[in-house]
């Protein structure tokens, strides 16, 4: 089995890995970088549980090969905040009970951060449309939308 050595820059840390070309970015992150916060819900690019940021933009890591991410900056949920110092968006998720089983949560966090990084002033309607890219089976979405719009407000206020 042929492998290629690549450097993956994830959460500002470089991982030098020897990988078969066909391994997906999701699998490389989970199995080789041991960053298991990025989850696999379908591997068809529909559910969004695998969403990470690639140069700040949300992407489905199940639909990318790891080697496609070489030379780019990958951000996963582990790079956002830590249990003893939560990112304000993570804090908003906790306060709004925006998760139950937690499986879709990292994907939603990265999607939300990516959307707001690109356009902080996005309207609530457009934000909902953008968030509809990801699936959740537990919460009914309202708490998730509330957490994201709450965080959006506080970021706009801080500007």
């Amino acid at each position, binding site marked *: 089995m042929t492998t290629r050595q690549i450097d993956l820059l994830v959460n500002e840390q470089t991982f030098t890995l020897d990988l078969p070309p066909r391994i997906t970015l999701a699998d490389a992150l989970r199995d080789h970088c041991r960053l298991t916060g990025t989850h696999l819900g379908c591997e068809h690019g529909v559910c969004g549980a695998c969403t990470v940021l690639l140069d700040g933009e949300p992407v489905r890591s199940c639909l990318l090969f790891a080697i496609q991410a070489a030379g780019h900056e990958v951000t996963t949920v582990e790079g956002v905040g830590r*249990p003893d110092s939560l990112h304000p968006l993570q804090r908003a998720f906790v306060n709004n009970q925006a998760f139950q089983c937690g499986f879709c949560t990292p994907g939603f966090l990265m999607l939300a951060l990516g959307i707001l990084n690109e356009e902080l002033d996005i309207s609530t309607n457009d934000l909902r449309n953008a968030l509809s890219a990801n699936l959740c089976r537990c919460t009914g979405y309202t708490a998730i939308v509330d957490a994201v719009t709450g965080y959006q407000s506080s970021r706009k206020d801080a500007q």
Partner: protein
Amino acid sequence: MTYSPTHDERLVTGGGCYVGDIQRPGQLHAVVVRSPIAHGHLRGIDTTRSLAMPGVRYVLTAADLGLRTPVVPMRLSARTDLFPFLQPVLATNRVRYVGEPVAVVVADDQYLAEDAAESVLLDIEELPAALGDIDVKPHTLLYDGTDSNVLCRLSGHHGDIKSAFTSADFVVTERFTTGRHSGVPMETRGLIAEWTGQQLQVWGPTKAIYPNRALMGRLLGLDEEQIRFSAVDVGGAFGVRGEFYPEDFLIPWLARTLAAPVKWIEDRREHLMATNHSRQQDHVASIAVSRDGRFLAFRDTFSCDMGAYVRNVGVRVPELTIPSLIGPYQWPAFEAICSCILTNKTPTGTMRSPGRLEATFVRERLIDLAARKLEMDPIELRRLNLLNEGDMPFSLDLGDDVGRLVYDSGNYGAVLDRALETAGYANMRKSSAEAREHGDAVGVGVALFTEKTGVPGREGAVVKVRADGTVRVISAAVNIGQGIEMTLAAIASDALQIPCDRIQVICGDTEDAPESLGTFGSRSTIFAGSAVLNGCGNLICQGTELASPFFGSGAVRYGDGMFTADGEDSMRWQELMNRLRVPELSAEGVFQHSEPATAFGVHTAETVVDRDTGHIEVRRLTVGYDVGRAIDRRRVECQLVGGATHALGGTLFEEFQYDPTGQPQSTSFMDYLLPTCNETPRIEAHVFEVATAPANPLGVKGAGEGGVPGVAAAIASAVDDALQLCDQAVTALPITPDRVRSLILD
């Protein structure tokens, strides 16, 4: 001071540990080879090519399992008539559904295992697929030695049905169908098994960990004590994760045989064809009423599409559907007859509120049609026939197949009033009528339901206080995403008067946990919660007795987390243990009960229908639910909202479809549609604490499934109202745009 993240902080920072996240040293990866054909004679399996592929360690087929291939037995039934239809862990000489396990490939990594799985050659002589027409003589039988694909019949009955129908002023009859769908959690199934030579350790089992462990032991020839199920985070269960499937035998078998850890993680395509389906039923139901609106009788002849095999739960879904048809009403006569039909489709099982979405849909729709015929207000018709507080406890013997229906407590009329008021029902009716006058198709619907909670059994818990003053609660209840451990912490905190942040709850691990039937049927707050409460009481008693010698003559009491006596200094747990020179004190608690606790609820829905496209927008969806008592109101609301969203999916979008050869058409989320945030309104959950449960010390009823039952009926009713249908009605789920268009055009 070390920082110990709470459950919430772990999950929101990617710190969850789901079974797919675990890596065991030296682990191998398993991929299940599944039948690509819905029905056929399995003539042979050629594994030579796959065995020769890189990284492949083993290819398992039924031939390796001995002369008698193990079957997966039933957990919830002892019906011997169903034994011939149980599923073998691997297909032997017949395949009966697309997705049926035929072989397992084990390799060094997942990708290599998948490569090799594609190279396993199956020689299948195809047979026509039987897909469920019971009136037409099936051209092929699933099982030799049978004369039809009717697996069995079940019935429930009460009163004199014949004379009730003959004497009725009005009879309304209609056919209703509910589409095949399922729980479909965001995390697919997975298992890791590791054999140490003495002990089998397994990650991934959930739901009913003790019964599953016993079953695994039986099938593998191991003592239960040799098997340990370790807790993992779970990405939703909804009834379908945690039943015993063929893989629950195959993966541990492989781990033991290969003396290496074996990891199997199902992918989504597999999940949609291999994990239990549910809900597909076909009813012809009738209601007999008097001219002044009294219910005289309810009659229903229906079929359940069981799929190709009888699974772990037996015929539980039809068994639960029949009594669920009764609902919160008084029926002088009742009859329901169910035919369970075998088909060449994925086998079925229970899912969130099993049989109850279906039964509530049929009954509430029929009541709406009766209201139309009688020209009565649909709420008034219901109110007239509701069971009331004076009828409680309510008991109805429905015969041998389904037994006695029991409602422990309830004040349905009062809760109905409050639910409608909180939902703003009167305003909804008014504003939708105004909208219709302006030409918009806006409508409102209501549905009432009873919800069986707290599947009976016996449950234990252990409560320990440690030398540092912290408390450890051990329960075999499982965290499936509902946060049970936080509810248990709240109960313990309240009982012991020790702050929540000093309480650690360990759930779902067989290592120390006492007995439990499992986490399903909305039972864990009732059973695990009551067991924890009792355990705390026992611990306090024990502590008080042990503390007494250290006090003077005064009677020792427990209060504010301390032992006290009049006129003396109080003593904390830490000090008591110090004096006794013990590292911890512990007590067990048990709760046992033989009957469920029945909750009651009301769904309302407001829909806007696009007459041109048939698109339905659910603008409002509310659930008013009497939970008896809420330990954590917010958590109950979350469950109700989640349950209602789940049901929304089955009402409008989700369906497993098959082509005429039995090929599944819904094998990805592009075909099997889950609601996104665009389709889901801000669901309003109103929790009422009216009729507490008399039988458990907490007075609680369950809520995990309470958001589900009335959603389909309420939305269907709202669509009828929006379109102002007179002779037509929504009678089929899912309510697709096609079906709406047909109703409009007819």
